[in-house]
């Protein structure tokens, strides 16, 4: 049952992501990308990461994609005029496929060797996913968390000076 559901979602994700790269019109690509994101969110839920699923929807689908769509609209970009030359296309696809084969092969060959942690589904249900993440963020990963602030600040500044009308 679960496997079936997984395969269904996975299929949708793959199809929509293929649509992302095949669609001529950027808007369509964007929409299919959002579709993919939803699928991923679903999978996150299946992986007992509801919080991640939530911010996946909120941040990605909500914020980033909206921004992208907005820009697309702003620049009102028509669909691409003429595709890349065939051999470039072919080469690209080939490369991708090769990479896929390789990763597939090595993932197939390898098992999970990482050290097991203490968090299991029971705990998640008991404590709550969000709290666990929060705790991790504010204790162990405090510094990275702080760094993100610098990162965002820099990004904002950049965005402003690059795109504000008059200096």
């Amino acid at each position, binding site marked *: 049952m679960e496997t079936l559901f997984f395969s269904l979602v996975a299929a949708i994700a793959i199809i929509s992501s293929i649509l992302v790269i095949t669609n001529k019109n950027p808007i369509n690509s964007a929409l299919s990308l959002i579709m993919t994101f939803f699928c991923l969110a679903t999978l996150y839920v299946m992986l007992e990461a509801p919080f991640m699923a939530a911010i996946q929807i909120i941040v990605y689908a909500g914020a980033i994609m909206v921004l992208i769509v907005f820009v697309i609209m702003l620049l009102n970009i028509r669909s691409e005029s003429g595709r890349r030359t065939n051999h470039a296309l072919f080469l690209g696809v080939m490369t991708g496929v090769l990479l896929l084969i390789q990763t597939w092969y090595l993932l197939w*060959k390898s098992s999970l*060797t*990482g*050290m097991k942690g203490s968090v299991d589904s029971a705990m998640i249900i008991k404590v709550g996913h969000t709290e666990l993440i929060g705790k991790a963020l504010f*204790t*162990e*990963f*405090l*510094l990275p968390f702080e760094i993100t602030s*610098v990162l965002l600040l820099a990004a904002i500044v950049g965005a402003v000076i690059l795109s504000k009308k008059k200096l």
Partner: protein
Amino acid sequence: METIVIPAINMAVIAPEVILSLFAMALLLINVFVKGESKAYLGYLGIAGIVVALFTLVSGWGFPTEGFSGTVIQDNFGIFFKVIFLISAAMSILISDKYLVREGCNQGEIYPLILFATVGMMLMASGTDLMTIFLGLEVLSVSLYILAGFNRDSIKSNEAGLKYFLLGAFSTGFLLYGMALTYGATGTTKVAKIAAHIAQTGMGSSNLMLLAGMLLMATGFAFKIAAAPFHMWTPDVYEGAPTPITAFMSVGPKAAGFAAFLRVFLIALPALKAEWTWLVWVLAVLTMTVGNITALYQQNIKRMLAYSSIAHAGYVLVGFTAGNAVGTAGIMFYMLSYAFMNIGAFAIIILVGKKGEENNNVSDYAGFGYKHPMLGIAMCIFLFSLAGIPPAAGFIGKFYLFSGAIQAGYIWLAIIGVLNSAASVYYYLRVMIFMYFKEPNEDFAWVKLTPAFIICLIIAVAGVMIPGVLPGVILELAQKAVLM
């Protein structure tokens, strides 16, 4: 619901980063109130911040301290690299003001952004957790995307920024995938713990997941340090970006990339040394050769130096291949001297350049040596140092790098290296040919030297010649800073 216990925060560990960030924010605020020419003072304020950071930094020399539950460490290795970052940042700031005014994009934000980038680099150098390193790298990258495209009105600048952004994001993908696989294989993102786990489970190259993780991370870092075949963005971006930023980019981020690269590979993945050594070997050869050979043809001096910087990444990779004390010390020494010589060269390029990135062709330097004897001599010193001819720091650096390789038994690598640097001599000489052997075709505008430039050049020359003649001290420090 239990309370969150915030672990003890050891600010000392990240004091320099904090100081810089604070200064950056302060600059952002002050920027609102200063107008026009006086924006230069922002730069000087920034330099003040850098100096302060520098002092707090060096005070930590000799006492490695961890902090923030093992996500960051302040050790000699980090400190040495951070010094390089700070110096390059300061020198780039010194040379940017004049340029910004000339190119008519004199916005104060550039200084805080440089500082942010520096913070990012410092975090890369001192991060002991893949997350820290990743975020530091992103801080750096994001700031650099902006800086590269900083001159909004110049198409070249836009193009540079955009190209850098797209490719940078692309490479980030690989880096992340690599980190993910490593995480999967070891169950942690902490550099030290990764090593420990590998050691205790005794997994090695047999573990394909770990191996793939290593390789993908390597490609990610290779992009940052512009190693072939991940180098192709470099010439375009360097050429398009505002010259001071090019100077900055060619030195700081490269060094940062190496810092992170070294830390991750030497601390976390020593078990795979046999594997990544060969990878790096190949990268080194490719990078040196491609960089040098392509540089031979260049007419635009910025672009030429871009290729040359690729080649230098190659030389440094030679030291990396060695992976021994000499090699690593060589890397540090080399990056330091490279900061001086390259930024010095770019400073002169800015001086010679005209509005709209004009006058950047090698042929524009005809007779330069006679018009400005002193600048000419300085340029010669930088170029000879880049070419690795004694008694300049560049030579000592190369000597150490190749010695490292030889000590580790990679004699062919060293031979390829020296042959490369022999080839590289040609294009450095070409500049001098124009500077001295050709008569000035049209007498170009008298270069106006601001005090900032004079200081920058003096520092650069000193930084090239003194370590060149008496490298002992710095080499000793580098030896002390080696990881292991």
